[in-house]
C-alpha cells in the first residue's frame, strides 16, 4: 500500500485493482523523473523494467490531459530490436486502455509504410517507439528540429547491448543532436547487470557541451552527470539455481557437439514445462535439434530458432512458444534479448557459455517472476569446457558479470553522422564538434581528427585534392554552415543509414521440378529442369561459395544437398538418407571466451580445493597433467614442445579466447618462419594455441618468441596481406558512405560485385595513401573485433618473464584435446592460391 500511495491517481488505483504492488524501483524512477533526473536502471530480467521506464511518461502525460495538447513528441523510446518495439507498444496499451488515458503510442521501424511515416512527421505521437537506425534517419530529415524539440524523455532499452557497438556510437551521436533541439530532456536507460555501470551511465547521458545554454535548466535539475548518482538498482531477484551436467557418459577430449549429453538434456526437457536450449553457433543449433529429435521417443514438441531461418518460420515458433504449444526451443543468440515469449522454466546451455554476463542474461529468460529462482543447466561439450562451465556457474551464483560496456567511437560512424546532420538541418562545424565530444564514445576525439572526418565526408579525405570540385557537402558562404550539396546527395545518404553490415546472404530454396513433385538429382544434366521452390531461410554467401554441388549440410533442421546457385538462391534438395553432412559447420554467433571466465578457469586449474566439485574424469585429467607435465600457476603460461609423427609441435596455453589465440598463431608462425623452424600451420582453440613444423622448436628463446614487440612490425606485415583487413575496410567504407551498400551501375542481386570492388579499393588505397582515415578506422576495428589485440597485448604483458617451457617426447594430457583438432587449417595467405594450385595439380595429373 505504501508503495502505491506514492504514485498519483489513477495509477495507484490501477495497481491496486490488479492486486499489484509497484516495485520500489518503479516508484523511485517516477520520483526521479518528476525531479527531471536522468536514470540508468539496472534490473534483472522480469523486474518490470519496461513499465518502470514508461511509468513516469504515462504519469506526466496523464496529468497533462487537462491542458489542450497539440501534437508533439513527448517520449522517444529506442530499442535494438524491431520486434521489441512492437512488443513493448502492445504491452503499454493495456495500462493505457485500462486507465482510459488518451494517448497516441506508435512504432516506427523499417516496416512502417510511407504514408504512416509522413503522418507521424506532421502529427507526432505522444510516445514513439523506434530503433537507432530510424532515429538516424529522422535526424537526417529537414524537419528534424520541429519533430524533436518537444521531447521530454528518451528511453533506451537494452542499453547494455547497444552501448559497446557501432550502433551505440551512432545512437550516442544522434541523441546528442536531439539534445541540441530539446536540451532539457531527461534520459532513461534500461539495462541488465553490467560490469562497468559508470561507463554505461556515461554513455547514456554523455555530458552537455558547456557552451549550450539550457533554457529550462533553471526550472529543473539539469540531467548532467555531475548531478550525482544516476544509477538506480532494482532489487536483485532470487539467486538462480545453476547446475552443471555431471554426465555419466564419457566427456570427449575435444569438439563442440556435446552429443554425449543429449540423453540427459532430453531428460531435463521432459521434466520442464518449457525449456530454452541455448547454443553458441547456428551449426550447433542444427546439430542439437537433430540429435534431440533422434531420441525424442515421447514426440515432445521441440522447435528450432536461429537467425538464418525464414522470418515466417521464426514467427511461427515464437507464436507457438507464447501459446504454450512447445516443450523446448533450440536457439542461438536470436532469443538473447528481451522479447517475452511464454512461460520458460528451464534454460539449458549447450557448450560453454563463453561469458558470465551472457549466461546471466540467458538464465534470465527462465521464469520471469522475480521471487522464484530461475533454473539453468549447463552441458559442457569437452574437458576444458567443464572447467569453463564451473567457472561460469560460480560467477552467476555470485552475481559477478563481465564484458565491455563501452567502446571508443568509430570514425566511420562519425562520418555517417556528419553526413546525416548535413542532410538535415545545416550545421556549424564548431558546434557539431562540441556536440560530438559531449558523447562518451567520442569524448577524447581531437579536433584535428574531427576535421579529417569532416573532409572525408566532403571530398573523400584524400591527400590528392582532386575531388574538391565534387564535394558531397558544401559550406554556405554567409552562415558558414554545412549542408548536403544537393537533395540527391542527402537521399543517397538516407538509403545507406545504419551500422549493421549484413554478410551477403543467399536464400536457401528447395528445388522443385516443373510439374513434378520431389526431384531427383542425377548430376549436372538434370539441373536445368529444377526451379527454385519453397524458401527455407537465408545463409551467408561465403558458406555456399565453399560448397561443391552434391555437398550436404545441415540447415533448418534437415540435411540438405546443395545443387546449384540460381540468381540469389541456393537450390537444395532434402537428403534424408545422408548420415553425416559433408560440410558440418558454418560460422555465425561465435563468441570468444571472456577474459573474466578465462581468469577463473586458470585459478581453478591451480587450486586443488576448487576442483572438488569437478567430475572424476576431469580431476584425473588434471592429475595426470600434473604428473606428466605441469599445471601452471594463474600468472604463468605453459609452453610444451614435442615431436609426433614426422612433425614437431609447440603448444601454449594462454586461456585468452579463440580470437586472441588466432592472432597469436599468425604472429608466432611468422616469427618461427624467420627463425628457420619452417612452421607448417597452427591451430587456435579457446584455451590453447598449437604450431607445428618440420624442425624441433624446443630450443627457441621463448621470451623472445612471445615478446610484446610482435604487435609492431609483424602485425603490420601480416595485416597487409590479410583478407580480414579487406573485409573490415569494406564495412567501414560502407558505414562511412564511401561505397554504397549497393553500388550504382554495378548492381548484382547478391552484391558480389561490391565485395570485389571493395577489395580493389582497399588495395589501391593501401598502396597510395596508407594513413587514410578509413584505413585507420578499419585497423582499429580489426584490432578490436577480429584480432582481439587488446587482449593479446594484455596476455603478452602478463606472461612476460613467466613462460614455463617443458620439452617432451610425448603428448601431454592438456595437449591432447588440441592435437585432436590439429591439421584442419592451412596457413592463411597461401591458402587462396593453394586452392587454385589444387585445381591445376589435378589437371596436370589428368593431362599427363
Amino acid at each position: 500500500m505504501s508503495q502505491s500511495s506514492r504514485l498519483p491517481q489513477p495509477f495507484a488505483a490501477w495497481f491496486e485493482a490488479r492486486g499489484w504492488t509497484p516495485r520500489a524501483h518503479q516508484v523511485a524512477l517516477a520520483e526521479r523523473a518528476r525531479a527531471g533526473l536522468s536514470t540508468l536502471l539496472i534490473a534483472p530480467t522480469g523486474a518490470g523494467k519496461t513499465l518502470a521506464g514508461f511509468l513516469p511518461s504515462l504519469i506526466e502525460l496523464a496529468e497533462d490531459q487537462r491542458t489542450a495538447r497539440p501534437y508533439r513528441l513527448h517520449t522517444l523510446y529506442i530499442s535494438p530490436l524491431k520486434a521489441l518495439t512492437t512488443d513493448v507498444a502492445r504491452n503499454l496499451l493495456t495500462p493505457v486502455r485500462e486507465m482510459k488515458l488518451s494517448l497516441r503510442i506508435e512504432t516506427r521501424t523499417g516496416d512502417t509504410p510511407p504514408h504512416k511515416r509522413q503522418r507521424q512527421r506532421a502529427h507526432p505521437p505522444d510516445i514513439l517507439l523506434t530503433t537507432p537506425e530510424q532515429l538516424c534517419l529522422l535526424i537526417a530529415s529537414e524537419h528534424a528540429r520541429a519533430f524533436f524539440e518537444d521531447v521530454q524523455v528518451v528511453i533506451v532499452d537494452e542499453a547494455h547491448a547497444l552501448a559497446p557497438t557501432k550502433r551505440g556510437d551512432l545512437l550516442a551521436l544522434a541523441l546528442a543532436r536531439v539534445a541540441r533541439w530539446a536540451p532539457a530532456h531527461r534520459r532513461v536507460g534500461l539495462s541488465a547487470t553490467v560490469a562497468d555501470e559508470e561507463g554505461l551511465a556515461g554513455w547514456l547521458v554523455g555530458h552537455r557541451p558547456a557552451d549550450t545554454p539550457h533554457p529550462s535548466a533553471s526550472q529543473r535539475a539539469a540531467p548532467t552527470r555531475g548531478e550525482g548518482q544516476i544509477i538506480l538498482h532494482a532489487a536483485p531477484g532470487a539467486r538462480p539455481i545453476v547446475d552443471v551436467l555431471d554426465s555419466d557418459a564419457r566427456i570427449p577430449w575435444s569438439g563442440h557437439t556435446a552429443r554425449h549429453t543429449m540423453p540427459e538434456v532430453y531428460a531435463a526437457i521432459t521434466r520442464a514445462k518449457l525449456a530454452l536450449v541455448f547454443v553458441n553457433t547456428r551449426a550447433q543449433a542444427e546439430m542439437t535439434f537433430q540429435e534431440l529429435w533422434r531420441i525424442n521417443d515421447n514426440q515432445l514438441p521441440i522447435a528450432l530458432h536461429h537467425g538464418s531461418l525464414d522470418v515466417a518460420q521464426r514467427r511461427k515458433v515464437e507464436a507457438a512458444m507464447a501459446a504454450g504449444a512447445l516443450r523446448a526451443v533450440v536457439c542461438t543468440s536470436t532469443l538473447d534479448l528481451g522479447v517475452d515469449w511464454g512461460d520458460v522454466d528451464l534454460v539449458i546451455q549447450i557448450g560453454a557459455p563463453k561469458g558470465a554476463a551472457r549466461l546471466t542474461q540467458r538464465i534470465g529468460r527462465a521464469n520471469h517472476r522475480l521471487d522464484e529462482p530461475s533454473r539453468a543447466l549447463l552441458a559442457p561439450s569437452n574437458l576444458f569446457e567443464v572447467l569453463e562451465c564451473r567457472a561460469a556457474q560460480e560467477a552467476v551464483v555470485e552475481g559477478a558479470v563481465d564484458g565491455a560496456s563501452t567502446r571508443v567511437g568509430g570514425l566511420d560512424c562519425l562520418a555517417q553522422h556528419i553526413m546525416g546532420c548535413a542532410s538535415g538541418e545545416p550545421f556549424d562545424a564548431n558546434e557539431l564538434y562540441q556536440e560530438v565530444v559531449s558523447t562518451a564514445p567520442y569524448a577524447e576525439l581531437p579536433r584535428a581528427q574531427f576535421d579529417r572526418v569532416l573532409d572525408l565526408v566532403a571530398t573523400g579525405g584524400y591527400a590528392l585534392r582532386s575531388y574538391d570540385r565534387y564535394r558531397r557537402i558544401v559550406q554556405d558562404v554567409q552562415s558558414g554552415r554545412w549542408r548536403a550539396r544537393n537533395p540527391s546527395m542527402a537521399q543517397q545518404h538516407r538509403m545507406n543509414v545504419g551500422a549493421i553490415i549484413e554478410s551477403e546472404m543467399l536464400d536457401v530454396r528447395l528445388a522443385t521440378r516443373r510439374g513434378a513433385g520431389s526431384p531427383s538429382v542425377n548430376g549436372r544434366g538434370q539441373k536445368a529442369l529444377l526451379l527454385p521452390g519453397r524458401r527455407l531461410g537465408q545463409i551467408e554467401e561465403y558458406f555456399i561459395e565453399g560448397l561443391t554441388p552434391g555437398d550436404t549440410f545441415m540447415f533448418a533442421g534437415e540435411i540438405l544437398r546443395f545443387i546449384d546457385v540460381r540468381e540469389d538462391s541456393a537450390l537444395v534438395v532434402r537428403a534424408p538418407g545422408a548420415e553425416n553432412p559433408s560440410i558440418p559447420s558454418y560460422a555465425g554467433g561465435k563468441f570468444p571466451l571472456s577474459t573474466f571466465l578465462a581468469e577463473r578457469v586458470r585459478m581453478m586449474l591451480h587450486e586443488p580445493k576448487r576442483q572438488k566439485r569437478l567430475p572424476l574424469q576431469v580431476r584425473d585429467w588434471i592429475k595426470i597433467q600434473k604428473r606428466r607435465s605441469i599445471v601452471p600457476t594463474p600468472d604463468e603460461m605453459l609452453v610444451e614442445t614435442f615431436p609426433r609423427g614426422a612433425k614437431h609441435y609447440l603448444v601454449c596455453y594462454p586461456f585468452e579466447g579463440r580470437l586472441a589465440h588466432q592472432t597469436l598463431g599468425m604472429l608466432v608462425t611468422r616469427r618461427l618462419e624467420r627463425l628457420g623452424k619452417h612452421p607448417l600451420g597452427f591451430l587456435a582453440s579457446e584455451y590453447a594455441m598449437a604450431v607445428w613444423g618440420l624442425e624441433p622448436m624446443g630450443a627457441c628463446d621463448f621470451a623472445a618468441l612471445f615478446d610484446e614487440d610482435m604487435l609492431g612490425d609483424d602485425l603490420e606485415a601480416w595485416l597487409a596481406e590479410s583478407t580480414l583487413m579487406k573485409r573490415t575496410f569494406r564495412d567501414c567504407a560502407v558505414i562511412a558512405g564511401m561505397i554504397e551498400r549497393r553500388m550504382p551501375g554495378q548492381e548484382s542481386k547478391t552484391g558480389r560485385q561490391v565485395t570485389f570492388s571493395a577489395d580493389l579499393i582497399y588495395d589501391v588505397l593501401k598502396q597510395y595513401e596508407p594513413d587514410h582515415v578509413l584505413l585507420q578506422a578499419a585497423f582499429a576495428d580489426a584490432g578490436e573485433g577480429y584480432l582481439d589485440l587488446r587482449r593479446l597485448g594484455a596476455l603478452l604483458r602478463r606472461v612476460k618473464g613467466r613462460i614455463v617451457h617443458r620439452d617432451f617426447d610425448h603428448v601431454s594430457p592438456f595437449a591432447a584435446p588440441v592435437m585432436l583438432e590439429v591439421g584442419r587449417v592451412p596457413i592463411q595467405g597461401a591458402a587462396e592460391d593453394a586452392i587454385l594450385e589444387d585445381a591445376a595439380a589435378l589437371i596436370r595429373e589428368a593431362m599427363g
Partner: protein
Amino acid sequence: MPLLSQPRQTSQRRERPAPRAPLCAPWPVVIGATVELQIAGATVTALPGGALWIRDAKTLVVSDLHLEKGSSFALRGQMLPPYDTRATLTKLASLMDRLSPDIVVSLGDSFHDCGGPARMSEGDRALLRDLITRCDWIWVEGNHDGRTPETLGGVVRDMLHLGALALRHEPTGAGCEIAGHLHPCARVSGRGRSVRRRCFAYDGANLVMPAFGAFTGGLNLCDEAFAAIFPRGAMALVLARARVVPVAQERLLPD
C-alpha cells in the same frame, strides 16, 4: 611498323567459317609465372597482371583499363580513392619497362567514360603521355569511351589485325580473335572455401582478356554472355597472386 601498315582487310576473313578447334586440344604451356598459348598460329603469352604479350610482334595488349573510374564515381557523390588511374598506369609502365614493346594496344574501354581524359590529373596525364611516346600506341574503340582517348596521342582504331589475329573490343566468337569487354572472372572452390579471380578465357580459337584496370570488377565465366563466344565452353587462365594458373572448364563454378 610493318604490322600497322597492313591493309584492314577482313570481310573475307569474317565470312570464312570460324575454325572450331576442339576445346582441350592445345593445353597451354606453363612457363614460370606465365602461360603460353596458341591462337591463329601465333604464340601469345598470358602475363600474371592480366596483360598479353605477342612476342613475334613485340606487342603488348591490355584491355579495359577503365581509367578515371574513381573520379567518375566521385562525380556522383561516391568518393572512391583517386589513385586508380595512377595504379593502372604504373602497372602498365612496369610491364613496358620490362618488355620494351614496339606496340601497345589498349583493347577498348581505356577510360571509364568519355569525360575521363578531361578529368585526369596533370601527373597522370604526363605519365600516360610518356608511355604513349615510347612506342606505337593504339587505342581500340570501346563502348565506354569511343574515340575520346585520341586527344592524348596514339592512334584510334575500331579494330586491328596482327597477322591472322583480329583484335577488337567486343568479342564476336568469329575465331582467331583477341577481345576484352566482358571482364572474365573464374570461381574455383576447394578446401571448404572458394576464390574468385580475374582470368583469360580461351577455347583454342578465341581469347577474351581480363580487365586490366585497378577498379574493374568481373563477370563469371559461367555467365551466359560467354556462351555465344565459346559455344563449347572455355578454360580459364586464372590470375593468381603472382602467376597465371590454367584451370579446366570442368572446375569452374558459377557465382
